[in-house]
């Protein structure tokens, strides 16, 4: 079965994976239609870019800005800590990209 992602608002430039996806076609449901080709494996709950997003451009979900791109994001790319940053929270950029575990308190674990 083709994995699915859910686009909440028509103006969103990201969608949330409902199934785990490998690189390849992902079906868009919700406010969007058609397919997006995932450029890499993306886990359920994570986001895929529905459009090319330039550095510093707004990432939009729920029709609302959820932060800004920190590098060029291609349509189909996994959107997460490595290419999207909060406008407020500077700590999230230091977290492990896969586990979300903190890296800035490593010195306390001795």
């Amino acid at each position, binding site marked *: 079965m083709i994995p699915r992602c859910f686009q909440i608002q028509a103006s969103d430039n990201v969608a*949330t994976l*409902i199934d785990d996806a490998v690189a390849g076609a992902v079906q868009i449901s919700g406010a969007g239609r058609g397919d997006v080709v995932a450029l890499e494996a993306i*886990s359920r*709950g994570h986001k895929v870019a529905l459009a090319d997003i330039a550095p510093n451009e707004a990432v939009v979900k729920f029709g609302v800005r959820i932060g800004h791109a920190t590098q060029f994001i291609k349509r189909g790319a996994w*959107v997460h800590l490595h290419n999207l940053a909060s406008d*407020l*929270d500077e*700590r999230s950029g230091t977290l492990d990209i896969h586990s979300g575990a*903190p890296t800035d308190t490593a010195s306390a674990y001795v």
Partner: protein
Amino acid sequence: MSDLSAQSWTGYLRPDGRKGIRNLVLVIYTVECAQHVAHAIGANEEDVHVIGFPGCYDNAYAIRLMLALARHPNVGAVLSVGLGCEYTQPEKLAEVARQSGRPAEWFFIQQSGGTKSSVAKGKEIVSKLREEIRKSTPRVSMTLADLTVGCECGGSDGTSGLAGNPTVGAFFDLLVDAGGRAVFEETVEMIGLREHMLSRSANATARQQLADAYDKAERYCRSVRQWSVSPGNFAGGLTTIEEKSLGAFAKGGTRPIQGVIRVAEPPRGPGLWILDSVPDDHFMQFGYTNPNDTEGIMDLISAGSQIVLFVTGRGSVIGSPIAPLIKVTGNSATFRAMEEDMDFDAGRVLAGDLTLARAGRELAEMVIRVAAGEPSKPERLGHREYFIMYKHQNTPSLTEGCRA
């Protein structure tokens, strides 16, 4: 389809006119030193729940919180137990509970001969109190209009904002339309949504209260340099606090927000309310706001919530004393993996098996069944986690001291 607002069940009428869905004896300890004895008193006792405050130095916020729980609609009687040398006064807690019309007793362990004799004494008291409230509490018909329902989310993932919280939002709309009270909190998870939130105000007063609560929450996060997102949230696919906030705010449904209440305050009328649990910013540089999910759930119960909904995408195994916790997940895989703990699978909305409106209605029907006496899963499993901490709300200015 039957009208939800007409569905009724039988509850317990308290002397202050509030209506409860459980008839409990609450044991309260007033310092960590009395914790073991209090829990031993409550062990293997039907309809006896235990809460307490660990600190020896008293705290006005914690006292107000415990008194709100002692006078909660689901509580019929109170036993407070102290060690004997702490600041918080068990006698005064019992006295205030008694003034509310509830039978209440208290004792100091130091005056009761140690662990075994204190436990025996406490068990004798709770069994007498339980018998008394079972015999004498008037039964009363209740509908959704008599309910206050709180909602907290924790262990969120990408599905919480897509299905779990929106399902609660759909239920909250039904509850508000039926004349009930809906309360949600975690203003630190409304960060990034100032204008969006203010646009939901019922009136100018509510708008000002929401603006003040939002601005304080943002000052708090900036000052502690910690935003309300956890490693599990990131691993689950959430990337920014703004994204998490939007998902969290979805539990508020679509009805106007009537205003902001603080911890231990009931809503001032029917409708949708936001509970502000963030500490005052002029005292001790805030302290901590929501250290864990259980703390927020206790705050919602202190607002008089007879039932609390807990939305979790990644899964959680907590429960709550006093008010049953109903666990909702927007992640069907989590529901299947942890079905022994999960009450409601809102992931069916994402699979296209259920509309959001239908999910909200199904959740309303579950709330009514639990209100009518069916135990929720955490309740059946015996989960009664609580967390009452030092915090400062409604304190006077620094120069006036901290005893308010």
